[in-house]
């Protein structure tokens, strides 16, 4: 019968399940329990309370509880839950937006500090998160290593004896065969051997087992998780991550001081960084010019001149998104870009006291950017400028100055000016993107603050001869992320092993097959019983027993029996 199974309401399994003793699942019969425990004794739920007295008994109980499967499930659940807050709250060091935690603390003055104390802004390096995954790793190791020992034993042991009542197994067939017992057993054994079962032939029966690879795969999977964690640990102990902004024409040398932001691990040799240097010769960006996605980025390219070693040969390299520069174990990635207006400033004495590009930080998709220009050498007073750079300018009365398009269509520099003390003298570190206005006073134009919009080539003169600023031209800058992770090769190997182990352990079905021959009632031939038992929670291989019975000498096609999972009979 080959009618689609879908056409049969309830289908074959309903009938089979009804004939079984009531219970949770198919495995709940006493026989299955015995077989299952023989196969995976480590997979117990929770061990009984210690019966003996003393510390040793309790320690043994604690260890068994920790390495039990139920604990593993609970720990996995805890790990999943513990990972959630880190994706909803801003995180230090891992966040997309570095200022997010500070802003969150300012916005939530009551809850914020408590969340901070409990580690909610550094979830993935917090003690409680570490506790969960370390316990999980210990639990896993304690479960898997004894299992490895048992695998080794069972791989050398013979398949176990047939249970007395084969009819109680998952899949069972009976057939009458017109042949001698020895002949039948030989045929069954060679059939099973050809299918790479491990086979033992006895007087009246054959026992066979296959699928040890499943256990091996399982073992490899769990052990690779440990190796992966080790690789991650090496990376975060010895590696580093840094960010730097490089303007067109400028250079960067890979030493700690030249980074805008540098995050080393606890054991990183920060003085022994790979001594390469790069110059950003040119940066090109291409954007969608029409259609609904107008303004979307299409292509970024940074043309670099690289010296892999100091005094080495100069080399032209192009770095793009997804195509980093690699120097030894250090990689340099293009992560963003923006504009640096080139300005020159003369002070009250008429001397040029500043000249060069100034990085303005983009804050929207059309690269509307904001920034400050600090002129500490100005006389008689220091000068500070604050404002916007817009690659395609538009001043919307409601939204304020905004760029309409990310490329340079109508670049404008909108600035206000300050005089006084920039506060750089006391040596306290301050942001290059912000003015410390404590000792500055805003330059006024009558009653209004002095403000001007400049196009390239235009100048503005401050009132009372305090100085002039000329917007010379526009350069681009590129953001680079530089990273070194000495553990990543190990992690990659572990990840590949993990995937292979997992696939093998889920794809291979470990199972046992028994064949028993008895003299047929009424003489003439023999009765063959074949049964199989799956040691994994998967249905037996469809048709395995039918093809076994069909291969016996003098067999009639088919054979009858309970076969809940074969779909072809």
């Amino acid at each position: 019968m080959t009618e689609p199974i879908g056409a049969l309401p309830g289908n074959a399994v309903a009938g089979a399940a009804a004939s079984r003793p009531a219970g949770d699942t198919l495995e709940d019969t006493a026989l299955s329990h015995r077989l299952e425990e023989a196969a995976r004794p480590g997979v117990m739920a929770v061990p009984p309370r210690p019966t003996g007295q003393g510390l040793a008994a309790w320690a043994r109980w604690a260890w068994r509880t920790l390495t039990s499967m139920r604990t593993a499930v609970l720990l996995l659940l805890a790990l999943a839950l513990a990972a959630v807050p880190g994706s909803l709250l801003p995180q230090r060091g891992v966040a997309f937006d570095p200022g997010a935690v500070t802003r969150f603390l300012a916005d939530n003055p009551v809850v914020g500090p408590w969340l901070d104390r409990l580690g909610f802004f550094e979830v993935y390096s917090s003690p409680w998160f570490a506790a969960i995954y370390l316990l999980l790793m210990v639990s896993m190791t304690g479960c898997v290593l004894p299992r490895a020992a048992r695998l080794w034993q069972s791989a050398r042991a013979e398949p176990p004896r047939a249970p007395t009542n084969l009819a109680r197994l998952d899949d069972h067939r009976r057939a009458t065969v017109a042949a001698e017992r020895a002949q039948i057993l030989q045929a069954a054994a060679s059939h099973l051997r050809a299918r790479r079962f491990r086979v033992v032939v006895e007087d009246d029966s054959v026992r066979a087992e296959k699928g040890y690879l499943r256990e091996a795969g399982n073992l490899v999977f769990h052990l690779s998780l440990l190796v992966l964690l080790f690789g991650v640990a090496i990376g975060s102990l010895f590696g580093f991550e840094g960010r730097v902004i490089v303007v067109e024409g400028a250079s960067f040398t890979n030493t700690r001081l030249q980074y805008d932001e540098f995050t080393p691990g606890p054991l990183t040799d920060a003085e022994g960084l790979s001594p390469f240097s790069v110059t950003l010769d040119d940066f090109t960006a291409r954007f969608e010019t029409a259609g609904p996605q107008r303004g979307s980025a299409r292509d970024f390219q940074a043309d670099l001149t690289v010296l892999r070693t100091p005094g080495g040969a100069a080399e032209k390299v192009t770095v793009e998104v997804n195509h980093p520069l690699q120097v030894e174990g250090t990689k340099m990635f293009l992560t963003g870009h923006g504009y640096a207006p080139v300005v020159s400033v003369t002070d009250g004495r008429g001397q040029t006291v500043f000249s060069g590009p100034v990085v303005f930080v983009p804050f929207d998709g059309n690269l509307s950017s904001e920034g400050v220009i600090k002129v500490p050498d100005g006389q008689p007073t220091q000068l500070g400028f604050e404002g916007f750079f817009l690659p395609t300018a538009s001043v919307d009365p409601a939204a304020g100055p905004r760029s309409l398009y990310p490329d340079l269509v109508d670049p404008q520099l909108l600035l206000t000016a300050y005089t006084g003390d920039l506060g750089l003298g006391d040596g306290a570190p301050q942001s290059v993107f912000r003015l410390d206005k404590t000792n500055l006073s805003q330059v006024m134009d009558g009653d209004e603050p002095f403000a001007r919009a400049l196009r390239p080539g235009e100048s503005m003169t401050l009132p009372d001869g305090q100085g002039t600023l000329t917007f010379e031209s526009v350069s681009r800058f590129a953001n680079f992320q530089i990273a070194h992770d000495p553990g990543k090769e190990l992690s990659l190997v572990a990840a590949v092993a993990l995937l292979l182990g997992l696939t093998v352990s889920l794809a291979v079905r470990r199972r046992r097959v028994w064949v028993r021959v008895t003299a047929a009632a009424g003489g003439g031939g023999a009765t063959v019983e074949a049964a199989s038992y799956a040691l994994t929670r998967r249905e037996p291989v469809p048709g395995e027993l039918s093809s076994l019975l069909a291969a016996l000498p003098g067999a009639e096609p088919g054979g009858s029996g309970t076969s809940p999972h074969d779909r072809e009979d």
Partner: protein
Amino acid sequence: MPTPNLLAELSDRLIYSAIAVYALAMLAYAYQAARRSHPVPEDAPRLEAVAAGAHAAVRDPQPPTAGARPAIRDAAARRTERIAAALTTLAFALHLAGVVSRGLAAGRVPWGNMYEFTTAATLAATSAYLVFLRRRQPVRDLGVWVLALVTLCLGLAVTVLYTPAGDLVPALNSYWLVIHVAAAIIAGGVFTVGAAATGLYLLRRRADARDAGGQATRGYAGRLPAAATLERLAHTAHLFAFPVWTFAVLAGAIWAEDSWGRYWGWDPKETWAFITWVLYAAYLHAQSTAGWRGRKAGWLALAGYAAFWFNFVGVNLFITGLHSYAGV
């Protein structure tokens, strides 16, 4: 060779047609589910079993003389089901053509933004369903739910998420887009079948528990396949999808290393991929733990599926992270 614009327009129309046919198929499945009688044991000929009242009497309080009616209803239900399967296959063909023409129109893989990901992931869900159906797995009762989800998602895709065919942002310009996202899509499709089977398993199991308390199950849950069958089906689906999902996460890590210089940075997308993975791992472990097998394991699988969806919808729309680039 048709121009890209023509292809894009063709793709849109094919997707709209697929939605219409999916809706019809879903209705056919719903009708079939409503018409079908309670299951009878498979080993006895259907008419006799009902007439003798041996098994059916327990479940079905109808007098034995009325036994012929369920059989006629079953025949009608089977016909409806064949119609539903044919409609599903037709909708799948339209859907597939829509996704392929979208790819041709854009000149790249058709999963570069949220609209395209939705059309491709729902295609994977239908394919997974059809593959299970072809392999004679007892998925028939999942049909109405899988198709309801597919129809709903496609409807949202064309109304809310729609983005015209175009080039990719530079961050997505990598062959890892093909590998990583394809694996995520395939895993998502098979997880969908797994989740539908798990949901029905939990329903059926609850009905069985009531049965044991002396209340015969009437209504929808009583007509579902046996709990053991549904559980096995769900397990098979998850066993396939879990390694694929593992691969998707690992491929994503390799791409992240290539793109951002670190293979794991707890970006929200990565975090929720991890949460999904851990929940499904918990499900697989729970399946061999006494006390967790069955009901609790089922809820873990559903939690994993919810995390998968949150990663796609919630993380894309509500959380800012490195994976926010494709627009909507």
